[in-house]
């Protein structure tokens, strides 16, 4: 999934900008050997095999849309974290690390871990016990059909658009990295995704996400390992970086600390402040994404028990904390190991500089990860690295398409078009909608191809809905007094607030100082504070409207609201299987990492 966090990445370093900037580079970065081609071909054979194998296990709607709710904690957890491990994110954040240093790791640690643990330990029981099929489904149970339909329509629309953007971005990256034809990449990838999701449903998408997760680690882990060997470990890297900064080869800055420069907007190159990181990124954005975006929540809802559903995000959090090792570290290592053909240190630049100097052989920040792969990976291993990127793109598409299919069928088609049909009917609709979703995605991919600027608006659009949704879901889950009208107006006005603030800054850039509360703030700070304002507005409006409207009787809130939901008693398990134990371990590691890199 390349969508949600991308709106918080600086304009020059967003994942989508990664695709665009790669398209500006002239010759292809890598040349594949027959061995590399074989590695890629094996991957495609494997995903189609999985799709056909799982077809027989997707006969009922519960099997097709919810993977039969049979996923173990490990599978749901890896799929949960993998749904957010898109290739463009990997490249975009590696580029950010090259440009801004380890500050980029905030998006993997405080921008994910607290929210993932909160989902598992606090919110999951309500999602799981009410047996909802989706987040809009939860809204329907809690607030009624109106809020649910608004959330479902906006999510379905944005999800299928994002799938198209992902498809186009993949085609463009493959064109530049490997010289592949755009149409070839789009057709092959969409056929493969359509085949395995339409055949196997969510189970197939989840299987492929787990496969992608393994491939990403198998293909990309070698890059930082070899980089650290070459530089003499973390200490050696820091010494070489300090030397490069002292000689002016690398721009001055603190590349290896995360919090020291957060005291003021002007003290760091991102133009952000610790309050924006903690409350904007760490709460409004990350809680919105990890706890209410159906694309990721769907993976956990497919777990085989409440304990598995709670444990899945906790397992995912450990891997999420490790992702900077294969994303941020290669970006940092690029500052000291990437060299030109003549042996001089390579200087990556912004995409605008690359565009202004065509034919100069310049590379943009976002190319750092492919460049590092080309540097360290020989035949076979390079194919593995490229396969990891392809797998990331394809599972991103599959994740969007499977979420779109479930939302459309359960939250739009069933309540508004055909209310009472046989189960087989909805499965057939699901398969057809999968194909339709892929076709719309292809259309969106070609639309973006002809108007690349649309991509940025798609990113912004997605961000409009997530934070207000968080405010409405949280209040609905933990405040019995919240009413149907409160939820609807909170969601609507929170969304309009987000759109209004975005438009204000878009058409009048100096307004950023008011939105982000500082004249020194930069674009990324705007995203954080805009999310904070919109979630605050959604909560505030929900509270005020609820206090003036009639609440639902408590009997109708059973299983959806804290305090009136009897949680099932779970069998006692040994400590090493206990979700609270692993949550505590995750919290300790989270704090240790932040303190070590303070």
């Amino acid at each position, binding site marked *: 999934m390349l969508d949600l966090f991308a709106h918080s990445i600086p304009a020059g370093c967003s994942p989508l900008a990664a695709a665009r900037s790669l398209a500006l580079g002239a010759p292809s970065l890598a040349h594949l050997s027959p*061995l590399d081609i074989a590695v890629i071909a094996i991957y495609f054979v*494997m995903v189609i095999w999985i799709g056909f*194998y799982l077809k027989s296990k997707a006969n009922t709607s519960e099997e097709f849309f919810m993977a039969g709710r049979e996923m173990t904690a490990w599978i749901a957890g890896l799929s949960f974290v993998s749904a957010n491990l898109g290739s463009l994110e990997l490249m975009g954040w590696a580029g950010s690390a090259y440009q801004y240093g380890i500050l980029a790791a905030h998006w993997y640690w405080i921008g994910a871990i607290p929210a993932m643990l909160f989902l598992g330990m606090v919110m999951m029981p309500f999602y799981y016990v009410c047996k909802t099929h989706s987040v809009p489904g939860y809204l329907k149970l809690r607030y009624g059909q109106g809020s649910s339909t608004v959330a479902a329509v906006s999510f379905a629309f944005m999800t299928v658009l994002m799938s198209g953007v992902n498809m186009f971005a993949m085609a463009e990256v493959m064109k530049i990295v490997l010289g592949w034809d755009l149409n070839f990449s789009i057709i092959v990838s969409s056929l493969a995704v359509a085949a395995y999701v339409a055949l196997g449903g969510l*189970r197939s998408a989840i*299987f492929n996400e787990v496969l992608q997760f393994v491939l990403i680690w*198998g293909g990309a882990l070698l890059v930082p390992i070899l980089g650290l060997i070459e530089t003499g470990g973390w200490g050696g890297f820091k010494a070489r970086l300090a030397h490069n900064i002292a000689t002016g080869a690398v721009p001055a800055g603190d590349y290896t600390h995360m919090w020291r420069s957060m005291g003021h907007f002007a003290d760091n190159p991102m133009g952000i402040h610790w309050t924006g990181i903690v409350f904007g990124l760490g709460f409004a954005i990350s809680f919105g994404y990890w706890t209410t975006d159906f694309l990721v929540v769907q993976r956990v809802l497919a777990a085989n028990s409440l304990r598995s559903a709670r444990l899945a995000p906790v397992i995912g959090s450990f891997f999420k904390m490790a992702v900077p090792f294969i994303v941020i570290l290669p970006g940092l290592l690029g500052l000291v190991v990437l060299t030109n053909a003549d042996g001089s240190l390579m200087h990556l630049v912004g995409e605008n500089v690359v565009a202004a100097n065509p034919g100069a052989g310049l590379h943009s920040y976002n190319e750092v990860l492919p460049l590092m792969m080309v540097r*360290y990976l*020989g035949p*076979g291993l390079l194919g*593995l690295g490229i396969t990891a990127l392809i797998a990331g793109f394809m599972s991103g598409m599959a994740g969007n398409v499977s979420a779109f299919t479930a939302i459309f069928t359960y939250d739009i088609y069933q309540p508004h078009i055909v209310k009472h049909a046989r189960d087989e009917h909805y499965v057939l609709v699901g398969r057809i909608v999968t194909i339709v979703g892929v076709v719309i995605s292809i259309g969106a991919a070609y639309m973006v191809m002809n108007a690349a600027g649309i991509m940025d608006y798609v990113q912004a659009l997605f961000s409009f809905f997530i934070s207000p949704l968080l405010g409405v879901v949280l209040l609905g889950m933990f405040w019995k007094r919240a009413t149907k009208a409160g939820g609807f107006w909170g969601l609507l006005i929170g969304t309009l607030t987000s759109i209004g603030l975005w438009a204000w800054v878009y058409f009048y850039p100096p307004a950023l100082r008011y939105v982000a509360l500082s004249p020194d703030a930069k674009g990324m700070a705007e995203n954080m504070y805009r999310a904070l304002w919109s979630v605050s507005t959604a909560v505030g409006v929900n509270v005020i409207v609820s206090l003036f409207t009639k609440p639902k009787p408590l009997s109708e809130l059973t299983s959806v609201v804290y305090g009136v939901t009897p949680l099932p008693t779970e069998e006692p398990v040994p400590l090493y299987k206990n979700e609270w134990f692993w949550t505590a371990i995750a919290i300790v590691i989270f704090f240790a990492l932040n303190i070590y890199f303070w």
Partner: protein
Amino acid sequence: MHSSGIPIWFFIGVLLTAYGALVLGYGIYELGTGTMAVQNYHASVWWGATLLLVGLFYLIRFRPSRTS
């Protein structure tokens, strides 16, 4: 997942075993011809072997006859 036939871990085992064999095979060939790039540190050999071993473990541990 074991109740639903072939577990995902078996598929992962197949994939890693195939990749490990290919990469290790090439690494051994490369050692023989001496064409290995300096900064690779013979990665094809030890990374290929690692993938192969992990793949074989999953392949055997989660083979369908055992898990069913």
